[in-house]
């Protein structure tokens, strides 16, 4: 699953550590999601969308059919 997490994080001037702290996960988890080595659970995906005040599909999208709005 592809995502815009790195771009959104940069737009909000957040480091991986700061975002991880807000989400209650480790910095390595954020790095793994950004590098698309790990797909987060649905609750974590919702938390991420909530932090960036956007819809979940604005952050995560299918790698086969590009469904970004």
């Amino acid at each position, binding site marked *: 699953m592809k995502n*815009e997490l790195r*771009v959104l994080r940069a*737009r909000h001037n957040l480091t991986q550590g700061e975002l991880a702290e807000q989400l209650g*996960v480790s910095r390595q*988890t954020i790095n*793994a999601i*950004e590098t698309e080595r790990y797909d987060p659970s649905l609750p974590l995906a919702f938390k991420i969308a909530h932090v960036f005040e956007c819809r979940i599909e*604005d952050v995560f999208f299918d790698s086969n059919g590009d469904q970004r*709005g």
Partner: protein
Amino acid sequence: MNSQAPEIQVNKPISRWPICEMLLRGTYGTGTPAESRLILRSRIVFGVVLGWAILGRESHAHPNPVTRVITVFLPAVLCSYYAFEKRKYFLSLDELTQRIELEGMAWAYSLGVLAALWAGGICYALALRWPLDASLLSWRLFFLFAIALAAIKGIYRYFATRRY
């Protein structure tokens, strides 16, 4: 969201897992209270094990029923306590580290059963070759260990499915 290439250039930081802490302590270097607690408790357990080892040598030299009972039961009690603390730490981890821990446990279980079966088979073959050597007759223990592991997993699986 704009589907074009993002204009913001961001460096790609590397993962940097705390290898030393992972290998030596079995923790992920999260620095949480749960991790500090586990480290402290494992140091206490290690200290008691050290004391137990010294006590075991002493009790061997001077047989005493009380110290013998302690040396028999202490390791099991300590291992149980450490497992309890480790479980609490596991529950405090985030979803990725929990997944890594689970993968590690799954591989440890699978390889443990496989190694026990191999060791049992090899020792059995050796026991057949040299039937008078009593030290090689413990091959049954390996098979029993593998069966016990599989049984524990089966029972856990049964109770785990009750939750869903």
